[in-house]
């Protein structure tokens, strides 16, 4: 069970949990990434508006429960199965991303498998505590993350150059479109995951408000991250694989404040683990909805799911360098399909079939 505030900050932290990996976008739209972020925010707001249509039609239901109701049993089952696969894929991408970051920056000698297993196991254990417990920490974590971000922005003032924002609006229209689509698909609209978890909401939870406020808070966090990265790194954005980490790395004030990146990395890793824990909760719920019963031994299911995710993460990508490229050209479309297209179709079909509550 979770309340409005927990959900709001949960969504915000879920989005913010990806801010270590803004490379998906910053490598293509470079110094104009903040414009991309604004465009993506507009697109996401539209998507969330579409979600609220679904939420008010089927109050108290999860996305997967809506499927069975809207499409009937067979097609609903198929869609739910696809969603389970999508969630596991999502977890695999997140895990792999984290694993790459670890092997290139923090523990280069440790085999990636160990890192992945540790992360997946931790998140599975965390998800075993239930979504209520995980989300209870959302306010605390988001506050810490946000304060850390503001602090490192402050420490980086010395390194910021306004000229780094120039030239402005020089890229092609298609680049902006692509960039904002990628950003919408990940991380902004990844909050489709919370639609699956809606049945756990407290009766008094104002879900729609949470979605909007959470999105705005998360987007604000992303925006500040982008602005800071651009101001500090400028044109070198094009070849850096972890711009956020690189930016924080440049903090160097009088030999006192230096090598702080590990602390910020620590904060961001905890956020990413938080995100993965929520994701695992959602996978559990998705599996339960698909097979149509609740499990007694949730931990076993979770560990099985974690194993699948680790395997997918380990063998799905050849090297760390290919992941952003793959995501930009292929992954984002998969994500977009599950985050935007399918819910939209569900809403339209529900409207045509006049299912759920009429009143919007």
């Amino acid at each position: 069970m979770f309340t409005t505030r927990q959900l709001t900050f949960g969504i915000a932290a879920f989005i913010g949990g990806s801010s270590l990996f803004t490379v998906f976008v910053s490598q293509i739209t470079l110094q104009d990434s903040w414009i991309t972020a604004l465009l993506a925010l507009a697109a996401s707001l539209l998507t969330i508006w579409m979600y609220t249509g679904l939420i008010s039609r089927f109050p108290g239901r999860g996305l997967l429960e809506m499927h069975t109701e809207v499409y009937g049993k067979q097609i609903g089952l198929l869609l739910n199965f696809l969603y389970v696969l999508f969630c596991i894929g999502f977890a695999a991408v997140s895990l792999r991303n984290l694993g790459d970051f670890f092997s290139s920056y923090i523990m280069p000698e440790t085999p990636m498998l160990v890192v992945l297993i540790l992360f997946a196991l931790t998140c599975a254990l965390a998800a075993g505590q239930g979504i209520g417990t995980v989300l209870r920490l959302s306010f605390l974590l988001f506050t810490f993350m946000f304060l850390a971000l503001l602090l490192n922005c402050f420490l980086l003032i010395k390194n910021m150059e306004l000229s780094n924002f120039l030239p402005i609006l020089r890229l092609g229209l298609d680049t902006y479109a692509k960039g904002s689509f990628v950003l919408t698909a990940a991380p902004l609209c990844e909050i489709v995951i919370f639609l699956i978890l809606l049945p756990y909401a407290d009766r008094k939870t104002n879900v729609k408000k949470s979605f909007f406020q959470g999105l705005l808070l998360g987007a604000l966090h992303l925006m500040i991250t982008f602005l800071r990265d651009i101001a500090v790194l400028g044109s070198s954005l094009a070849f850096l694989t972890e711009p956020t980490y690189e930016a924080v790395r440049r903090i160097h004030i009088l030999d006192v404040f230096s090598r702080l990146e590990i602390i910020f990395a620590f904060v961001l890793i905890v956020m990413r683990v938080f995100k993965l824990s929520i994701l695992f909760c959602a996978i559990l719920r998705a599996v339960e909805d698909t097979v149509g019963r609740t499990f007694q031994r949730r931990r076993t299911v979770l560990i099985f799911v974690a194993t699948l995710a680790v395997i997918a993460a380990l063998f799905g990508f050849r090297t760390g360098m290919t992941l952003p490229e793959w995501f930009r050209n292929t992954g984002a479309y998969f994500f977009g399909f599950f985050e935007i297209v399918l819910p939209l179709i569900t809403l339209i079909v529900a409207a045509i079939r006049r299912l759920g509550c009429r009143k919007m």
Partner: protein
Amino acid sequence: MKKLTELLNAFAARPDAPGIDDTPWKTARIEKKLDVNMKILEDIFGPSGDVIRRRFRFGQSRKQAALICVDGLIRADRVAAEIVKPLMYDSTAEDMPCVLPRTMEEVQDAYMTVGESKTAYSFGDLVSSVLSGDAAVLIDGIPGVLITNAKGFPQRSIEDPQTESILRGPREGFVENMRTNTALLRRRLKTPDFTLETTTIGKQTDTSVTIAYLRTIADPNLVKEVKARLSAIDTDGILDSGYIEQFISDGGSPFFTTIASSEKPDAVAGKLLEGRVALLVDGSPYVLTVPTFFIENFQTTEDYYIAPLFATALRFVRFFAFIISVLTLPLYVALTTFHLELIPTELLLSMSAAKGNTPFPTVIEALLMIIVFEILKEAGIRLPRPAGQAVSMVGAIIIGETAVSAGLIGAPMVIAVAITAVSAFASPAQANASMILRLLFLLLSGIFGGLGLALGLWLLLLHLASLKSFGAPYLSPAVPFHMADAKDSLIRAPLRWLLTRPTDLAKRNPRRQKPRS
């Protein structure tokens, strides 16, 4: 006959055989005839030498009467002056009514000068009263028993509590006698709202347990829950409030206790005023309060007696001491084993110079050192004081000096362990938890480095967030966050800002004081 005894023995040995609470005499009524009653009591008490059974004659009627009490639990002079004398002599006085009393109530009304006396009619009541220090009088021809309070047994005087030393504030501490403890609380809470409800727990020890709360402030559901959990206890003995703590706690955490205990009446009174419920257990100077928040481990009564700024600073010191005591060693191990590049170069150079060529890996060094430290600490607590000094000498010289100069253990490690040890003493409330957590994190960071540490911390945070203490979230007011309560969390705002009681405790009566206009 022999067969029958065997059969009976076999019956008694069965696990579902009736326990002491099923013994038939418990509900048996007291007879009119004194000799019959005395015979039954003979059977109940057996050959115990400390149970006094003195016969005397009751006033003008010259009827047989008997006094039953336990030597050592009563004050002999009071029994003689306030019970035996009125019954033997005052009843013969001329102005006394000549009508013979027919019931124990009449005896009580006519002769008893002691304030606290009552009548009872079953052997169960008689026996439990006598064993808890009352004096009982049986009179031939009158059914029932007259029970009079004449308690007087050796007890410790009220002293400065040893485990919660303070610089400023009241120095009284609870003692083992529950009545003294309730009086200490009553002296601070002079309101009829302050309610004390007593039950007894423990089939053999029959220990009194008092539930104390403020009727208009504490949540009635909380009081009900406490009573329900207490009545669910079915054990033969309660020897300290620690027993109660373990029986009624929410469970769920092997590390943290979710029930606070205190030796200080002012601390308990303060918690009662916040809407908590206190449990006083006879025989234990530690009073339990529920629900308990994690943050209470870093708060002391003294915080409210000194200026807010200093109180806040001290709370932060305690909090960080806890964190340092848990994380210093694991962080040190993770940094020196896995993340050498994160240590500034000069520091790294001086550290490696100081470490020299020690034979063990850092994590083994750290494990060895904290095991030795725990042994030294335990030895220091258990040993008689003169020997304790010897232990600390050995610890300081051998471990601190010789181990380093012999090249067994690096000097930075000794520093890290020393910091850990001192910090652990600064937040004594969760000392056991920090010991276990330190060990766990040490293993995690020794095997997986900073990654293991980060993931362990995440799981610990989740674990803390999942805990409840009597329905209240353990991490309150941080998780869930309450702005109003944040004023008295790690921060201690000026007293006149503290307008409300903690949100998760006193929903019924949240207002503490009016805002100053």
